[in-house]
């Protein structure tokens, strides 16, 4: 048995290990895809509306190795929305003192 299907066994063992790791890291893995959209929305909002930097500079400033798929900056509402890895997040400028914050 062992000699006949060594690869199947190895594969199953590997699968089990991966499944174990996924279970162990389930909370982190579930939140992981949110990072890029949340980071981009929040840090762009602050770059633009707190630090008052130009829009094109802020786009470059928030660029990371993970790409974003959609992005919108609504200056009338001081609201920035970004999407990436299938998740979308929005940050809003709250005022002079409190700056930007991700909206729930």
């Amino acid at each position, binding site marked *: 048995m062992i000699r006949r299907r060594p690869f199947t066994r190895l594969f199953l063992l590997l699968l089990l290990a991966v499944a174990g790791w996924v279970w162990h890291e389930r909370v982190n893995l579930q939140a992981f895809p949110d*990072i890029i959209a949340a980071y981009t929305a929040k840090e762009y909002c602050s770059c633009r509306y707190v630090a008052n930097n130009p829009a094109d500079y802020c786009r*470059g400033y928030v660029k990371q190795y993970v790409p974003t798929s959609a992005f919108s900056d609504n200056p009338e509402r001081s609201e920035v929305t970004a999407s990436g890895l299938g998740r979308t997040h929005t940050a809003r400028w709250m005022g002079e*003192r409190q700056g930007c914050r991700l909206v729930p």
Partner: protein
Amino acid sequence: MVRGLLCVALLLVTVAARAETWPDKEWAKGALLAGPAVDALNAYAFPPRDDATRQGIRTDALLVIRDGVVIYERYAAPTIASTPHLTWSISKSLMATVLGVAYGENRFKLTDPAARFYPPMKQHPTVTMADLLHWASGLDWQEDYEYAPLKSSVVAMLYTRGRGDMAEFAADTERAAAPGQAFRYSSGDSNILSAALKGMLGHKAYMSYPWDVLFKPLGIRNATWETDADETFVASSYAYLTARDLARVGLLMARNGRWGDQQLLPQEWVAFNRQPFDSYKAGQDEAVPGGHWWLNREVQGAARPWPDAPADTFAALGHWGQALYVMPDEHLVIVRYGDDRDGSYRHNELLKRVLAAVQP
């Protein structure tokens, strides 16, 4: 006769006090530095900037104050003198300074458990204010930023699971070691301090406290301090100040917590900020932790972190090259903002070149 002597003494003290320069609405400008040493400083701090690769040293602002007077100031676009720049973890030392005022108002003692002011810390009832200020809560915190985003507690706190209530997220971290026994740099510890301050003051007073007790007295007019959704200041990361305004905090620290004739911070508080944490092991971090400030001190026989800077140098440091350096004996305050993405910037090299440039 005695009265006459007293008058003379009083006059001398007054003259000495007058001789001290403080910024008013603007900083006084002295003779600006020039010469080959300044060229060497410029060459290090402001090399041609590559926005495509984002490699190398990318200084946004460099400001040098001596004796309360601006002697060097330079910015790189788009940062200008009026830009409130993100300070990242300099915010931690700013929170320590705000806490110093609260300490002077007898709102807490260093030995107080944080749980006294912030109930979620009842999970860790023996963690004291001093432990948090030393980044020694003993909580199992992962401080990596972009290189280990899956496991990073900071990234989860700022952007995903923790962002609604960052202090609670930090307080919910499991214990890894006994509090106060070991240094472990943690943005979570700083945000628990911020929540503890809120507990001392109540929500309403807390929301204006940094402005009321620190920014306004120092003449800082446009500071932003972002909060989480629970309206707790993100003490770990999100204070924004112009370089000139951050230098005011530096001058306050250089002069031992005094601003003009007002002792804003108790001297013993500044002494605590500048006292190395005794359980810190040399080499654990890029500088020696004091009470939420970074020190250039020899510990356990190891060399100073910045050998070319004097031993009394202390600093507030932040991600991507943000720094506020204070050298009390040299009467120097240096603000350096940057956008360094590759870690090639060296504090010691910059300080060495600033010190060479300010020599008469």
